[in-house]
C-alpha cells in the first residue's frame, strides 16, 4: 500500500526533518531481559525522577509482580514469569535428545551466558517493560491536540501542558502503554527522561539498572550491540533468545525501546505482531468518505424520490 508507505515516511519525517539542525541522534533503550535480576530499581528510579504517584495494587499473587502493567502511574514495569520447562527449553528444539541437550547446556555454561535452571527444569524470567517509542507511533498520530509529539531525539513524549485528556491515545496504543491518571485527567507515559536528555544524562531507569539490563544510547549503536548479543547467545546454544522490536519492517516500524526476550512476546504480556493502527488510516478515510457519499445519496434519494 504505497499511500500507507507514504504516510509512514512522513510520520518518520517528524524526526529528524522538522528539527533541522536541532535534530539529535535518535536515542533509545535496549532492554536485555536475559540479565534482568528483577530488582525493580527501574520502576523506583523512574517514579523518583518523574514524580510518578504510587499505585497500590496489594499482593497480587503473580510471582513478585505487584505492578502488573504499564500505565499512567507505572512507566516501567518488571514482569516475573516462573516456568517449568521440559527437557528442551524451546519448542523448536523439543526434538533434541537428552544427550544433545546436555551438550548444549555445557556449551552455555562455559560461555557464561546460561540463565536457565535446567537441573530443576525451572526458570524465572524477569523483564522490564517500558514505552516502545515506536518509529510509527499510533498515540502520536491520533493525538488531536499535538500534546503527543516526536522530540528532537526521535522519542515520543506527552506534553502535560497541552494534553486535555481526550483519551484517544489510550486505545490507540498496541502495547497498552498509556492511560489516564485520576484525578489529574491527563494521560502520562515514559518520556525517556526528555529533560535529562537535554543535559546529556542517562534516563533514570537506565542509570539505576544494577546489571545494565537496561541499556541507553544511540539506537543505531544499540542495534549493533543487540545483534552481537543475540549471535553470542545463539552460538552458545541458547536458542530461545530473540530480539523484539529491533526491525524497521515490523508493524510499527521498529521500536525506539526494544528488547531481547527468552520466550514469545505474549508470555511477557507483549503483542507478538503489533501494528500501528494508522497504517490502515487511508483505507479508513476512504470508507468514511464513501459512507458520507452514501449518506448524501440516501438523503437525495429520499427527497427527490418523493417528487415522483
Amino acid at each position, binding site marked *: 500500500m504505497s499511500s500507507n508507505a507514504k504516510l509512514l515516511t512522513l510520520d518518520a519525517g517528524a524526526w529528524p526533518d522538522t528539527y533541522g539542525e536541532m535534530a539529535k541522534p535518535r536515542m533509545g533503550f535496549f532492554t536485555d531481559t536475559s*540479565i534482568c*535480576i*528483577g*530488582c*525493580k*530499581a527501574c*520502576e*523506583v528510579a523512574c*517514579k*523518583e525522577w518523574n514524580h510518578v504517584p*504510587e*499505585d*497500590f*495494587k*496489594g*499482593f497480587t*499473587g503473580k*510471582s*513478585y509482580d*505487584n*505492578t502488573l502493567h504499564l500505565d499512567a502511574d507505572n512507566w516501567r514495569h518488571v514482569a516475573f514469569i*516462573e516456568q*517449568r520447562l521440559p527437557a528442551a527449553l524451546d519448542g523448536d528444539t523439543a526434538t533434541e535428545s537428552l544427550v544433545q541437550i546436555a551438550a548444549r547446556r555445557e556449551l552455555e*555454561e*562455559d*560461555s*557464561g*551466558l*546460561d*540463565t536457565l*535452571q535446567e*537441573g*530443576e527444569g*525451572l*526458570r*524465572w524470567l*524477569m523483564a522490564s517493560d517500558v514505552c516502545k517509542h515506536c518509529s510509527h507511533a499510533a498515540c502520536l498520530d491520533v493525538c488531536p491536540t499535538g500534546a503527543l509529539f516526536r522530540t528532537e531525539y526521535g522519542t515520543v513524549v506527552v506534553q502535560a501542558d497541552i494534553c486535555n485528556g481526550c483519551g484517544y491515545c489510550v486505545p490507540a496504543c498496541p502495547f497498552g502503554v498509556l492511560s489516564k491518571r485520576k484525578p489529574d485527567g491527563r494521560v502520562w507515559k515514559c518520556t525517556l527522561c526528555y529533560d535529562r536528555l537535554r543535559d546529556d544524562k542517562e534516563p533514570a531507569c537506565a542509570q539505576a539498572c*544494577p*546489571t*545494565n539490563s537496561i541499556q541507553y544510547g544511540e539506537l543505531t549503536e544499540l542495534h549493533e550491540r543487540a545483534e552481537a548479543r543475540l549471535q553470542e547467545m545463539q552460538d552458545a546454544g541458547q536458542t530461545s533468545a530473540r530480539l523484539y522490536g529491533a526491525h524497521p519492517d515490523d508493524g510499527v516500524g521498529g521500536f525506539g525501546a526494544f528488547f531481547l526476550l527468552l520466550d514469545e512476546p505474549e508470555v511477557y504480556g507483549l503483542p507478538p505482531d503489533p501494528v500501528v493502527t494508522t497504517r490502515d488510516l487511508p483505507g479508513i478515510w476512504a470508507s468514511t468518505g464513501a459512507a458520507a457519499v452514501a449518506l448524501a445519496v440516501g438523503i437525495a434519494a429520499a427527497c427527490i424520490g418523493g417528487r415522483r
Partner: protein
Amino acid sequence: MPGLGTSFGRGGATTFQQDLQNSDVIVIQGSNMAECHPVGFQWVMEAKQRGAKVIHVDPRFTRTSAMADLHVPIRAGTDIAFLGGIVNYIIENERWFDEYVKHYTNATTIVDEGFRDTEDLDGFFSGWDPETGQYDISTWSYAGTEEHTAGGHKEQGAAVSGEQAHGAHGMKLDRGRPPKEDETMQHPRCVFQILKRHYSRYTPELVEEVCGIPKETFLQVAETLCQNSGRERTGAFCYAVGWTQHTVGVQYIRTAGIIQLLLGNIGRPGGGILALRGHANIQGSTDIPTLFNILPGYLPMPHPQAGPDLDTWVGNTSPRTGAWGDMRNYAVSLLKAWFGDAATGENDFCFGLLPRIDADHSHYAAINRMLDGKCPGFFVVGENPVVGSANGRMQRFALANLEWLVVRDVQLIETATFWKDSREIETGELKTEEIGTEVFFMPAASHTEKDGSFTNTQRLLQWHWKAVEPEGDARSELQWTFDLGRRVRRKLAGSTEPRDRALLNLTWNYTTQGPHDEPDAQEVLQEIGGRHADGSFVEKYQDLKNDGSTSCGSWIHAGVYKGGVNQAARKKPHTEQNWVAPEWGWAWPANRHIIYNRASADPSGKPWSERKKYVWWDEEQQKWTGYDDPDFVPDKPPDYQPKKNDIGLDALRGDSPFIIQADGRGWLYAPAGLMDGPMPTHYEPHESPATNPLYTQQQNPLRQRFNRPENPYNPTDPEPGWDVFPYVVTTYRLTEHHTAGGMSRTVPILSQLQPELFCEISPELAAERGIEHGDWATIVTSRTAIEARANVTDRVKPLRVEGRTIHQVGLPYHWGPGGIVKGDTANDLFPLVLDPNVHIQEVKAATCDILPGRRPRGPDVLRLVEDYKRRAGVKVVGE
C-alpha cells in the same frame, strides 16, 4: 566475623566486590546476593559474562538462583555437612593446592597429643566439661606450646568471642614457627591428617542424606570448585546472614575458610571470601565497635581473668609474634586518644579505669536482665528490635519491664510505640495503662543531614557529606552523643567518686559547628586515624608507640587521615585509575583491598601465574609491588628468616602471608579463638526435623539457650512431639524492603512493590495442608502464630532427607504493626538460641507447622499456641 578472624587473622571480607569479576567460579551460599545486594551483584554478572560459573546454594530458588548456572536447593541449617563434604572431596581426590597449603597454612603443624576429635568422642572435642558446658581448650593447642595456649580463655566462659580471642591468645612461638612440624604432612597428629580424619565421613552420600542434595549435584559443585582453583584459576565464596544466623554460624564460615585455604584461594585475585553485610555500616560498627566484648580495632575488652594491669592483660590476650605482637602499642595509643594527658605511664595509661566484662553482655543477655528487672535503662538507636530480633514477644515484654527507654530513629518505629500497638496488647498479655516504661522518642538525622563515614562490606571507608540541615528536633548521633556526654560531665564535675574518674578524664572537647552545635566529624576521624605527640598524623599502624607518644582511636584505621587528608573522602572517578581504584575512599588496613595478598605470589615472591598476578616481589627495587598495597612488610624479602626473640612482624618469615596470626599461616585448624571447636562439625539446628546421622550429640553442645517461660523451644527430632512442628521455617529479605522495615515500610514506592507479608511454600506442601495460592496461611511455633499470604511456588522444593520428605517454609521478615504496609512479624516465631562465639540468634532454621486460613484474633491465638505446646509436650524450664 571471628569465622574469618580465626582462619585468616582479620574479621573482614578478604577481598572486594569488584574483584569478583576476576573469579572463575563464584559460590553464593547463605546469601541471596542478587536480591539483597543487587548493585554488588553486577560484579558477579561481569564474571559470568567472562565465562565464570555461578553456583547458588540456597533453600529457595531466588532471583540469585535465576541468574546462576546452577541452583542447589539445600535443607536450611546443614551447610557444614555440605561444605565439609567438599573438604573431604578435595582431600580424597588430592585436589588441594599443595605448595600453597604447605607454605601458607598450618597444615604441617603438629597438634598436642592430648587432642581428641569429635570422630573419637561422638560429637565432642577433647576438654568438654559437662558441669560448665564449656571446653577446656588446652589440648587443642599446637604441640610444644605452653600449657595455657589460650591465656585466661578457659575460665572466660561465654564471655569470650571470636573477635576477643583474636589470634591465638598468648601463644608463645619462637621465630613465628610452631615447635613441631611435618613438612610431609604425614604425621598422624599434623593438622592435615587431623583434618583428613575429621571429614572422612562427609561423603557425597552423607551430603545427600543430610542436606537433601542429590549426590550428582553435590559432585558437580565440588568438581567445579576444584577445576577452577590452582595457579591459573581462582574461585570466590559470597555469604551473608544465611550463614551467620545459626547456632553454628561461625563454624559455617570457618568451613568455607578451610576450603579456600586448601584450594589456595585466599589473598589472590578472583578468590577469597566476601562477607556481604546487610547494613551501610555493619562492618564499621564492628571495626569501631558498639559491641560489648571488644574495643576499637578488635582489642579485647578487659576481663578480670586477663589481669589487673596493662602488661598482664596484653600478655594474656596477645601473641608475641605477628601483628598482634605489638598489641601494647595499639592499646596505649587508644588509651591516649581517650584519656589524653590523664593517661600516663605512671598510671598505666588509665587502663584501670576501663570497665570489665565477665560474661555474655550481648543484646539478648541484656534482654533477659530487663525481664528480670535488673536492667532499668535502655537506649535503642537506629534499631527496631521488636521487629528485627528473634522472639519479638520476649523483646516487647522486656521493654515493658524497663524504667526508661530512649528510642532514636528517623521514623516512629514499633520499638517506640510497643506500649500501644504491640500484639501483646491485642492478646491482652500487656495493657497500656499497666506499662510503667517511660519512653523518650528522639528524631534522628538521615545520612544526607550529616558528615561521616560508612565502612562498606569490603572494609572500605567512604565519606558522605552533609547536604542539608536536619529539620525540627532531628539531630545526628554525633551531636546527640556529644551533647549527652557534655551534660553528664557537667553534672558530675568535681565528683571524687572513683567511678566518675574515667568520665571526667575523658577527652571530650570537639569543636562544634552549625546551628545545632554539631561536632566536626572529621576531627573525630582524625582522632581515630592517629596522631604523633606533636599533633601530626600517623601514616600506618607500624608508627604507633607503646610509650604514650602516639594516640590512635583504632589501630586498624591508623593512617586514615595521613598527610592531613581525609582519605575516606577521596572520590577520584574509577575511570581515572586502575581497576582496584585505590584512590576512592580508604580500606582498612592501610588501604589494602585484597588482604593477605602476599599469598598472590608463590613462596619465592613470583606470581603463581600471569593470569592471576596481583602482588609480587620486585628484585631490582627489593620491595613488594603490584596493583594493590602489599599486605606485608614492604621490603621484607621472600626468603627472610626471623632471628630468635624477634617479636611482632619481625618474627614472621618472608613467606608468611597471614601476618596477623602468631604463625603467619592461614588456619585450617584453629587451636584457639573459638568456643565450639578447632574444626567445624555438623550439628543439627537447635530445632530440626532430622536426626544428626554423624553423632549422638544432635546439636552444637555450646549453643546458648535461654530457658524461661517467654522462650519455649519446639521438641526436635528424635524427641517425642517433634512432628507437631514437622516443617523447617527460614527467614529472608526481599530486594524491595530493608531489614525491620523502618527505612522501607515507611517509603511509599517500596511499600507498593511488596505490600504484604507472604510465605513461600511448595505446591506439594500446599496440597498436603490444603492451602490455596494467594489465600492466607497461619504459621505456628511454640512461641506464637502469625499469618501470611500463601505464595505457592515451584521455587521451593520438597527435599528427600533421611528417607523422608522435608518441606521448608520461607518467610520475609520485614513487616510489623507500623508503617504504610503492615503485617505480622516473622521473627516473633523464632526462639532465642545463640551461636556461642558471637551470640547471634538462629533465625535461619527452626521448625513450625502451617495451616490454611488467617490466625485467630486476640487471646484466641494464645489458645492455639497453648494447644500446640500441649500436643508437642513442650517443657519450659522456669515455668
